[in-house]
């Protein structure tokens, strides 16, 4: 029998029964959606349409409509790509790594974090896709047999590794997320009365009947997938970092990039999870499940990963001086004092300084402050990628090719559009999917529920 120490904080508040958990999670799916949901999804939908419009304009006209120039050949596009991929790290970290570490608090947040991961990775994939210019030839990123033309991909290129890393990560995350959903879909199916919805959720649940054998297989496959997904969490952002670090460009080529990018990705991913969940717990009345303690745990992850990122920034800065390499030192002096100094200091403030506020228990357990700081981190991590990409490029070796990057309305439009699509998908998820892993939560009610903990001790 599993034993839980008395000093651990309960993870499910109130006097909940198994039935209460089911009703609390499935209630919002059965009932009519509140007006607020319609308002939000309309706004998100309109922004999505605007974004899709911008993308269509971009594809039909050409990459020239972006603000790129011959010196700054990568700017917002790749910044957005890395930003979204980074956000897409939290979900699988929560569901896989925290599963391996037996962190039970993950059960209240894993479902929505995984959904967010999948949507974020989809948004990330948009950018390299449209960056190709001729997106209808996008299939050439795969190693295809020569019947398609004698064009063979360059296996030495980290851009190709990216294709494999991200598509693998996306597939495994999707399977992981879906397998977790199966028992919950079955629970919804059993409660639905309308034949059509019953049918739909029945199909989605793959005929799950809750037999002991099925549960045993469910747990086995979760563990196996967690084992597979954990190296993927590391590999994806490591390989994204290699897009830069394998080059010889000062400011890009540095060995700390892989682990530092992974840490930064987890950092930004958790910030986005917090942004979404702090709203969701309120609107969908899930305060008893996503408790203050959950928020505190996530904030601790934010401090840890933010500080790792901070150590990495300072390491890079120090070594750029220590190395004695002229170009390397210049790249960093230019970062913090050149024309893009403001971007550098926004990045430093948002990623390294403000997260340290979470050392104060009062702040890390305060919902409003956490919400504000989570957005600050999201902004900071966007600027981190902008700083890495644009400031390293904009001053070329030859001063005559020095230039600045100015985003056009299409740059801005596509970025905002992806945020719209992301929220549109997330709102759909929140309406029709069980937002908490309700069957998993039931497994900890006996040991970690507030009332049960009181009785046990």
């Amino acid at each position: 029998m599993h034993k839980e120490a008395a000093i651990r904080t309960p993870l499910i508040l109130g006097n909940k029964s198994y039935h209460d958990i089911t009703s609390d999670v499935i209630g919002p799916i059965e009932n009519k959606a509140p007006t607020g949901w319609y308002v939000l999804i309309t706004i998100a939908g309109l922004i999505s349409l605007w974004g899709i419009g911008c993308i269509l304009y971009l594809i039909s006209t050409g990459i020239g409509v972006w603000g790129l120039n011959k010196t700054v050949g990568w700017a917002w596009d790749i910044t957005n790509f890395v930003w979204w991929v980074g956000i897409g790290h939290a979900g699988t970290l929560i569901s896989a790594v925290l599963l391996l570490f037996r962190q039970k608090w993950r059960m209240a947040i894993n479902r929505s974090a995984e959904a967010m991961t999948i949507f974020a990775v989809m948004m990330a994939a948009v950018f390299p896709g449209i960056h190709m210019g001729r997106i209808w030839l996008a299939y050439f990123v795969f190693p295809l047999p020569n019947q398609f033309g004698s064009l063979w991909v360059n296996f030495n290129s980290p851009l190709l590794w990216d294709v494999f890393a991200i598509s693998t990560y996306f597939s495994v995350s999707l399977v992981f997320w879906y397998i977790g959903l199966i028992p919950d879909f079955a629970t919804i199916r059993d409660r639905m009365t309308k034949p059509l919805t019953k049918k739909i959720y029945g199909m989605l649940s793959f005929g799950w009947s809750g037999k002991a054998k099925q549960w045993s297989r469910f747990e086995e496959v979760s563990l196996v997938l967690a084992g597979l997904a954990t190296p993927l969490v590391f590999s994806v952002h490591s390989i994204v970092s290699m897009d830069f670090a394998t080059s010889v460009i000062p400011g890009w080529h540095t060995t700390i990039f892989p682990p530092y990018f992974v840490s930064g990705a987890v950092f930004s991913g958790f910030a986005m999870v917090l942004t979404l969940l702090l709203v969701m717990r309120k609107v969908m009345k899930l305060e008893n499940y996503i408790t203050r303690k959950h928020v505190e745990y996530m904030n601790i992850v934010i401090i840890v990963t933010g500080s790792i990122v901070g150590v990495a920034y300072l390491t890079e800065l120090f070594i750029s001086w220590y190395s004695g390499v002229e170009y390397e030192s210049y790249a960093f002096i230019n970062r913090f004092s050149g024309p893009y100094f403001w971007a550098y200091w926004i990045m430093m403030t948002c990623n390294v300084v403000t997260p340290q506020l979470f050392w104060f228990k009062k702040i890390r357990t305060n919902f409003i402050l956490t919400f504000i700081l989570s957005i600050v981190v999201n902004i900071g991590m966007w600027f981190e990628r902008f700083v890495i990409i644009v400031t390293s490029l904009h001053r070329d070796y030859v001063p005559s090719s020095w230039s600045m990057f100015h985003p056009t309305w299409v740059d801005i439009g596509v970025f905002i559009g992806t945020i719209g699509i992301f929220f549109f998908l997330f709102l759909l998820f929140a309406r029709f999917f069980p937002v908490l892993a309700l069957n998993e939560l039931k497994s900890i009610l006996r040991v970690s529920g507030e009332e049960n903990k009181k009785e046990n001790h």
Partner: protein
Amino acid sequence: MNFVFSSRAKLVSYILMIVGAIAIIAGFFVYGENHHARWWSNMMINGFYFLGIALGALFFYALHFATETAWAVMLRRVMEAVFSFIPYASVVMIIVFIGSTFHWNHIYHWMDEATTMQYVTAASEGSAHPDYFYSLEAAEKAGADVMANPSYDELIANKTMYLNKPFFWIRTLIYLATFILFGNWFRKRSLKEDEVGGTEIHMKGYKRAAVYLVIFAVFSSTLSWDWLMSIDTHWFSTLYGWYVFSGMWVSAMNIITILTLYLISKGYLKEVNSSHLQDMGKWVFALSFLWSYLWFSQFMLIWYSNIPEEVTYFIVRINEYKVPFFGMFIVNFALPMVVLMSRDAKRNPGFLIAMGTIIFIGHYMDTFMLIVPGVMEKMAFGWLEVGFLLGFMGLFINRVFSSLAKAPLEPQKSPYLEESLHHSI
């Protein structure tokens, strides 16, 4: 139950120490060339390897506090014993640094002022004690007739703001003092908790652990730059500190596992069950991956970019040290991956011990590769290296076992004790 440091175990530790002492003394006279370079590198390899093991144990100790890990509570005394070795290893490190400071060894090229001084008086150039001047003004002031110093190394000279003897010593002493202070603090509170119980000490430990983790996050990087990266003074790599840290951590988990298995085989730690073992095995397995990931990231990025000032580091290692260089990577990566993958292997003491021994040697070789190629041009491995390692093993066993014998092997009143006793996965 209290551990008894049996006379047989004592005898083994003494024999190892005597063998080591003989090798160390004989080695000093046999390998005298180049300021006893080989002898001093061995001192440093072993000093740093065992310090790293102790520091890794202290890090994991703090980590298990800060993350409220219950299962590891049963292994607290084992970890305390391992990190009780910090002061002894620190002494070894200090001896090496004293040797470097007084030029008894030339491990640190930058400590030779010939490399950092731009001018030398023509009369003294080439003599045993040349008169150096760092600038023309200084030479003029002294009225000396100077010429350009042929040993001057601009790259090293540019680093003197960071790499200079006083600052190096200040940093070194701060690191070691911090580690010893935190280690003692944790140990004292842990013993106190056995008497008074409650949650107060535990909560204090939780907070103190978080502070230590922050400090160690910085120090683990800077100490690797200071003590190890500066051996190859020209070379630099931003990942270096994290790579060295991961090596310390995996070595520590490995030793804690081996020590736990030894205690179990002698009839101690009866409450440590197969779930605890599996978790230990998981750490060794996972950290071997982490270490390999960082090794590969550093190697691959430098190899791929092929920038001369960076790639020289690996060229030396591949040309002169091919077998240990690639050999230790295979040993430290592929073997744990294959052997410790399955659940049953991680619950099997035989597998864990066999794997542990291999990893112990593998990470010794890693430490060897961190130090030796920067000090000596050619690979050298023989009775001296083996003798040194055996001697240090003897000292380590002796000190760790006597620390184990000082307190009950199971913590008595931790708030997480019950949870740890019932650990089942």
